[in-house]
């Protein structure tokens, strides 16, 4: 079998194999290898990187405490576009970690968590996470999945009107939306403001991030939802993978700076390498 060179065509046992997209492959390897290194280090030697406590995460404790003082429920949504099948799965799992944490606090303080869902396939996971949270607080018999977990509708308009209706009628004191969302979130956050709830939200989706920035009291911007999910879950693997992400981002930033300087001084070598 002939050894394959990058970017060139060779015949391997009569069939040709071409390696393409070298630059994305290098970036992928840097990200994956750095994340794997930190995960292995956590598993073998128990060294877990320390994550900074985000302001929005600290606000979640205050928000749930406020619900307990006022005797009002807490509204949580781990994503109106929650899915385990597409690229939104990572955001959905971050939202689930937040959901587990808030449910534990709700079980501890004796307040009702109301979870609204737009995707039917994630409901069993949500119910299981909440049941687990109640069990960890020793209140397994107090969990009622029919009252707490409510499937609204799968369309944008349906979930928007359903969530607005629930918030308007039940008047939660905290409105926590972390996960994959779309434009329908702004009216929901406005309704939360109208009933006097604290709005805490975060998403990765760029086209709706500005809605969260404008309407939320505390925002988790883009990758902060992964950090929040890892911090709240306390899982060493999740926390270690955040460190791996940071290495990848530093690598990307260095490449950007070097490429920009090279182009400024008339050299397109880095740019050509990135196009490979």
């Amino acid at each position, binding site marked *: 079998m002939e050894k394959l060179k990058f970017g060139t065509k060779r015949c391997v046992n009569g069939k040709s194999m*071409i390696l393409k997209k070298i630059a994305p492959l290098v970036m992928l390897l840097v990200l994956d290898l750095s994340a*794997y290194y930190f*995960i292995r280090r956590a598993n073998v030697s128990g060294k877990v990187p320390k994550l900074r406590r985000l302001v929005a995460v600290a606000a979640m404790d205050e928000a749930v405490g406020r619900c307990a003082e006022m005797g009002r429920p807490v509204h949580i949504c781990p994503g109106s576009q929650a899915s385990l099948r597409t690229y939104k799965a990572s955001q959905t799992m971050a939202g689930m970690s937040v959901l587990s944490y808030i449910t534990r606090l709700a079980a501890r303080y004796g307040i009702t968590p109301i979870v609204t869902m737009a995707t039917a396939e994630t409901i069993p996971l949500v119910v299981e996470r909440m049941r687990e949270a109640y069990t960890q607080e020793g209140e397994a018999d107090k969990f009622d999945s029919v009252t707490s977990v409510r499937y609204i509708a799968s369309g*944008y308009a349906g979930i928007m009107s359903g969530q607005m209706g629930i918030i308007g009628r039940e008047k939660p004191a905290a409105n926590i939306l972390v996960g994959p969302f779309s434009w329908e979130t702004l009216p929901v956050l406005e309704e939360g403001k109208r009933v006097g709830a604290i709005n805490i939200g975060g998403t*990765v989706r*760029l086209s709706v991030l500005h809605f969260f920035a404008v309407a939320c009291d505390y925002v988790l911007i883009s990758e902060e939802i992964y950090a929040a999910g890892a911090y709240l879950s306390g899982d060493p693997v999740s926390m270690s*993978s955040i460190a791996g992400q940071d290495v990848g981002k530093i690598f990307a930033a260095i490449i950007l700076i070097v490429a920009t300087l090279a182009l400024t001084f008339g050299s397109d070598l880095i740019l050509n390498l990135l196009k490979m």
Partner: protein
Amino acid sequence: MSKFLRADGPKLLLTVFGFLIIADYFVTWGPINQFTKLMTEWAMVCASTAGAVAYINIVHRMSRTVIRRDPRTWIPSLLGLAVMVFALAFGLAYTFRGDEYQYFYNLIKKPLEIALTGLLIFFIASASYRTFRIRSKEVAVLLGSTIFIMLMNAPIGEALWSGFPAGGEWIMKVGNTAGQRALLVTGTAGVVVFSLRLLLGYELARKEEPEGEIA
């Protein structure tokens, strides 16, 4: 059943198949490309099955709500059940691509969605009115750039000063694009690392096993 078949075997399959599918993006080679095509078709079958299970789950949950007569939710659940059954029967009778089903979709669902989408502008206005108050230097800069963008897009901007379109365009092309790309890089890094955790089996639920048990 041995521990390998119950736990390690599925994890190994997940890892191998997952990395082969990733390799398809970087390598043009018949066997890998054909394997990925087959796996994609199987994934669609699994997704459809998941959809069917989700439908059954929703019907079960809504039925429990109606039977329990929860005062807050039983009427919406009953209506939801009725619409689900009707839509399923209608779709099966006329097929989802038929003109009758499209009529039902275009005359009921679409206008309702459009009407609710139209409400968005009022909420944007009320949220902006509440948020854009000059409390600090950063908010002042934000408000200034927002006004530039608004005047860039409105005809009155160019009538007032010819610099508004150029300035607004610079903000969108340089500042806004740079910020968006930074967020895109960080968000994508999160997706890639999560995928790695999934492929290596760290996101799978683990069941505690008693020591020494041979299943």
